[in-house]
């Protein structure tokens, strides 16, 4: 970047100078114009390679879907090999490369190439392309006013992101298993954390289903205030209509808008940050890497909405490794790991004020996925 800054004024002087010196200056500036920073070349090459792979994989998945074939879990050597790679370091390197400030003249070309490769819609980008200094900045762009309409139906829950709906359904029984792909599932409590309120709810739900009597108040003295905040409405609502527990998994492709919005009006009571691997998150990875969703680094927000419990987990990947929480700008994700062998417990933060947490409205921006 420093080099480019030096080159451009030199070029400008060369063109402005003209006269007898124009011959020698002209040839020097012509030579300089071919000097593109290494990072940019690497990025362009990577875009080409990713685009080719993207087209190939999309075609294969589309063909499988047309034939009615459901993806099945099938671990392979490539997935095992991924575990040996320093994916977190690669992710941070990728983040550094894409943070390189691009010359203004190059920005539109670069972002148009990205949009072409990953099917992004440039018409809805919030600012003129020249104003995004780096690919990383462009990647997490805002939207133009009015390019999304938030469904205002009070009895509806909206999508927090742009993406592809991979899985959805109802969690039944005490296991509360979410299907990764056909033949392999993971538990919702592993995804959200052992201290999540979710297991208690599922247990209650299971007991309610069986019509058994229960005493949910007996352990309340041992619970923290936010657990009580979540539990109390449940206790109060024993006679009211029953509640089921549902889930939805949405995958964001690289070309998608990468900010996360609030799906409903809710109070965020607690945040959990799990450090972990940064495996790729595409459909191939989902059917070859065991426990993909609970091994990757993620940020979980848990709280309460009018119908009870709600949690949102934002899961990182190799290329999009860090998650930025707008309500907590000091949170840093995708940092070098201190302990490689033993997984660390999640870093948990309870939001103040007690019992209320942070109130969000449907459609409010919550978080952004950053490159690297």
């Amino acid at each position, binding site marked *: 970047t420093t080099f480019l800054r030096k080159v451009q004024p030199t070029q400008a002087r060369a063109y402005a100078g003209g006269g007898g010196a124009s011959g020698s200056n002209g040839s020097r500036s012509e030579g300089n114009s071919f000097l593109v920073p290494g990072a940019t070349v690497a990025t362009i090459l990577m875009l080409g390679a990713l685009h080719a792979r993207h087209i190939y994989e999309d075609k294969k998945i589309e063909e499988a879907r047309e034939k009615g074939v459901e993806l099945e879990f099938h671990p392979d050597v490539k997935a095992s090999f991924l575990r040996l790679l320093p994916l977190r370091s690669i992710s941070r390197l990728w983040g550094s490369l894409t943070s390189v400030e691009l010359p203004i003249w190059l920005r539109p070309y670069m972002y148009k190439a990205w949009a072409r490769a990953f099917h992004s819609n440039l018409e809805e980008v919030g600012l003129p392309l020249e104003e995004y200094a780096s690919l990383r900045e462009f990647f997490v762009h805002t939207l133009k006013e009015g390019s999304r309409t938030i469904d205002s139906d009070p009895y509806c829950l*909206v999508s*927090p992101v742009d993406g592809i*709906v991979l899985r959805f359904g109802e969690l039944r029984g005490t296991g509360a298993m979410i299907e990764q792909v056909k033949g392999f599932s993971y538990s919702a409590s592993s995804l959200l954390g052992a201290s999540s309120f979710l297991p208690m709810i599922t247990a209650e739900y299971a007991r309610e289903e069986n019509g058994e009597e229960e005493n949910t108040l007996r352990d309340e003295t041992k619970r923290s205030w936010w657990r009580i905040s979540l539990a109390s409405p449940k206790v109060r609502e024993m006679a009211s209509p029953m509640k*089921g527990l549902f889930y939805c998994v949405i995958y*964001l492709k690289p070309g998608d808008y990468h900010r996360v919005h609030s799906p409903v009006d809710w109070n965020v009571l607690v945040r959990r940050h799990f450090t972990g691997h940064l495996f790729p998150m595409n459909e191939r990875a989902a059917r070859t890497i065991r426990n993909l969703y609970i091994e990757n680094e993620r940020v979980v927000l848990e709280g309460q909405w009018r119908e009870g419990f709600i949690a949102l987990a934002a899961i990182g990947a190799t290329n999009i490794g860090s998650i930025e929480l707008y309500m907590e700008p000091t949170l840093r994700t995708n940092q070098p790991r201190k302990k490689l062998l033993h997984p660390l417990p999640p870093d948990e933060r309870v939001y103040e004020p007690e019992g209320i947490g942070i109130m969000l409205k449907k459609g409010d921006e919550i978080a952004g996925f950053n490159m690297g």
Partner: protein
Amino acid sequence: STVVLVFQAPISKAASEKGNSSEFKFCVKRGERIRMGEALGKWHE
């Protein structure tokens, strides 16, 4: 990157007893593209 939502929503008691609960209904299909702000699921009082 991926986002997973886990949430409680109303179900009808009668339907639940039959093992096929759902006051809340998803209005999406698997593999479908969805945009931020579009309805994922709806229910009625």
